[in-house]
């Protein structure tokens, strides 16, 4: 297992370097000038050009591409993600400030997805073609189909404006009071993965319930709940765990639309704002964080397989 983990770490490093290299090159080769947006509208040619040049020198953008890349890798090795061109704040500081809010929203929405989706899928699988099955699968389809922008605003109008039960926007605090702010964005973001998980859980359970070993377990006289939870559920969970992991990775990358609608201070809109403003250090730092997150989550998922399925071992 140790050798396996070492190999995976090496692969992870190569993946991360590949990702940051592609993003680095894409940003610099794409049209647009990141410093232009900082030149005042009424800047005369000389003053405007001087300010633009000063900013390019300050951010190393006047250097050849290979020099910029080498400097970037050197700074990365020292865990320096640079400063935002727009605000001059350290990108690492910005990301660290915002990541807890993104993590909180990811955990909240995944909890919603799992709590709704998995029981719904199991209930559907245990009673296929019944009213429960129809209701759960229709609800899942609706959940997957609804755009989060619409869902968020609808929930906001109902619970914040009409009923006044919950705040419309804000949040990101890790406090009991902060949980009130989490409810609407978490439900908004969790509805779609809940639908996906419900459908996946249902089909996976149906497959497993048809297996010979399940029939044998029933024939041996084991109770329905024992057959379900010890034999069927654990095996049916394997593909679901993969999807949960991928969804969690996606959620940890930030949910731009939900963060924007609910003014949730996560990394999603921070990175998108960096993209539209061509703020290179922000985009590079944000992508690096996302790449590392996905790599780590994949590692955790693979380890979870070994736990769920004793047949799986890593060497």
């Amino acid at each position, binding site marked *: 297992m140790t050798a396996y983990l070492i190999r995976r770490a090496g692969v992870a490093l190569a993946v991360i370097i590949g990702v940051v290299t592609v993003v680095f090159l894409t940003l610099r080769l*794409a*049209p*647009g*000038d*990141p410093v*232009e*947006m*900082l*030149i*005042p*509208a*009424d*800047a*005369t*040619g*000389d*003053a*405007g*050009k001087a*300010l*633009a040049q*000063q900013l390019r020198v300050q951010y190393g953008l006047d250097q050849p591409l290979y020099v910029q890349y080498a400097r970037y890798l050197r700074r990365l090795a020292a865990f320096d993600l640079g400063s935002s061109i*727009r*605000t*001059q*704040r*350290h990108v690492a500081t*910005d990301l660290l*400030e*915002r990541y807890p809010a993104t993590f909180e929203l990811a955990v909240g929405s995944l909890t919603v997805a799992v709590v709704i989706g998995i029981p719904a899928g199991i209930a559907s699988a245990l009673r296929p*073609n019944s*009213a429960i099955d*129809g*209701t759960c699968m*229709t609800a899942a389809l*609706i959940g997957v189909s609804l755009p989060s922008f619409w869902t968020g*605003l*609808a929930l*906001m*109008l*109902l619970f*914040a*404006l*009409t009923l*006044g039960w919950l*705040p*419309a*926007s*804000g949040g*990101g605090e890790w406090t009991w009071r902060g949980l009130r702010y989490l409810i609407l964005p978490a439900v908004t973001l969790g509805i779609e993965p809940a639908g996906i998980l419900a459908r996946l859980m249902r089909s996976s359970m149906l497959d497993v319930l048809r297996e010979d070993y399940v029939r044998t377990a029933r024939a041996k006289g084991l109770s329905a709940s024992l057959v379900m939870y010890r034999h069927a559920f654990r095996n049916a969970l394997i593909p679901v765990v993969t999807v949960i992991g991928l969804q969690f990775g996606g959620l940890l990358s930030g949910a731009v639309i939900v963060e*924007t*609608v609910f*003014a949730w*201070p996560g990394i999603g*809109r*921070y990175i998108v704002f960096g*993209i*539209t*403003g*061509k703020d290179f250090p922000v985009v590079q730092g944000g992508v690096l964080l996302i790449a590392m997150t996905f790599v780590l989550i994949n590692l955790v998922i693979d380890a979870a397989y070994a736990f769920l399925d004793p047949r799986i071992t890593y060497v």
Partner: protein
Amino acid sequence: MKMWSRGGRTGWVGIATFTAVALVASMIASRGVRPVVGATPTRGGTLIMSVKYNPTTVDPQKAKTITDDTILSLMAETLVKWEDGKFVGVLASRWDVSPDGAVYTFHLRSGAKFQDGQPLTAAAVAASLARMTDPANPLPRAANLTAVEQVQPLDPATVRIKLKAPDPDFLGELINIYIIDAAAAKNLGPDQAPSGTGPFKLAAYVPDQQLTFTKFAAYWGGEPYLDRIVVRIIPNADTQEVELQAGTIDFMDYVPPKDVTRLRTVGARPIPYGRVNWARIVFNLKTVSDVRLRQAVCYAFDRNAVLQDAYYGLGTPQYTIALQGSWAYDAEISPYRFDPARARGLLDEAGWKLPAGGSVRERDGKPLVLNFPSRGDAEWLLSTQMIQQMLRNVGVDTRITTAAPATYYNEVRTGQYDLAWWLSNAAPEPPIAASLLDSHQFWNTMQVRLPEVDSLVEQAQSTTERKARTADYFALQKIHHDQALECLGFWTKQVYATSAKVQGMTIDPTGIPLHPALWWKSQ
């Protein structure tokens, strides 16, 4: 029908869902906010403002955007500002201008002090301006002060600013140059604000979330009515509107034009302000070099339709580059008005003919297709699409490409376009959109140097003599019109909104809320 069949189950679920949605919609539609009427200012309370963008800085001298100004003007002030159509003193109680227009002497307001307790003096003003223009680290708006040769304190309450050359519009350069206590502003971190003289001081800043300001009781204009102002960052306009309706915020910036009327019906108070930008079609004069083609575009362009349909009427049609009725306005100019027949005639004259059965004009076998980039956001893209259709009606084809703002601005500035829908900030003075026609301007888009135009712009800006300036601007308007350098659209207005409880707030033409010390909330 068997209700319990698979199709029946789905049908009942659908009916139940529809009924629930309809019930919710009716509950929402019936809710509104009743306006509250108050007359006597009451002290105390917290005003909650919301803006769409995080400020780029909390240092007023490093401000770059209108959002920065909206927020940081709570805590810092300028020597002068533009209000009610004229310059009024803020930290300067009055000023004198030398006959040649090259020396400005400002007499500072007595009793004004910084929030750290230091008095506002001429030396402090000089130090503050020097901080902005430090050659080792010039701040973004140092470009506003390139005309300054020397800043000299004459006595504790008088500061003289000598310019390199006469500049009749120098006061306009100062309206967003904030005075701070530079002596105490060394080595500030990115989240630390220097002391200003404004009625509120920054107490806390959580990036991407909110800024909290507390009142500065010793403010020279009198203790503010409000105890606190909280500025929340809410990036989505729909969310801001929900919060405004719910009463959980008191102010929102940039109301989308489509929502202005609706907000009135729910008891909010939209505050339109202008003249913010001027919107027009700009040309790459290198590639669209035929004046008849440019004139044809101007005749094909229905500015009123774009103003009404894309901007919901929030603006004033613009027929020359000068503000109608102002001293710079030439009433003799006969503007380009919507006339597709005349557009077609000009195109025929220029040799662009419609082929048999075709809808796009050609010349020497080459179709008339123009590159027409746009920003991707609502009004901008809609305007571009409307203009595309107008040009199609006269046989001119265009290719629209959309890009994020930063990329789009670069494309136009570096000439990667033929024509574009373009908005620029309108300075309060002079009342003419002339400066960007000067090819030396960083944001000049024409790609071609026009020495006569450059000369007229520079001449008009180098003398204080009104008659000479008027003559120069009249000549400039004639060239602009005859050469169809741009197709003028309209001066835009924008709208902020407050709850009915907010009293005392006005907005200057550039979008900065004025007199925060006088804001209060009725019960």
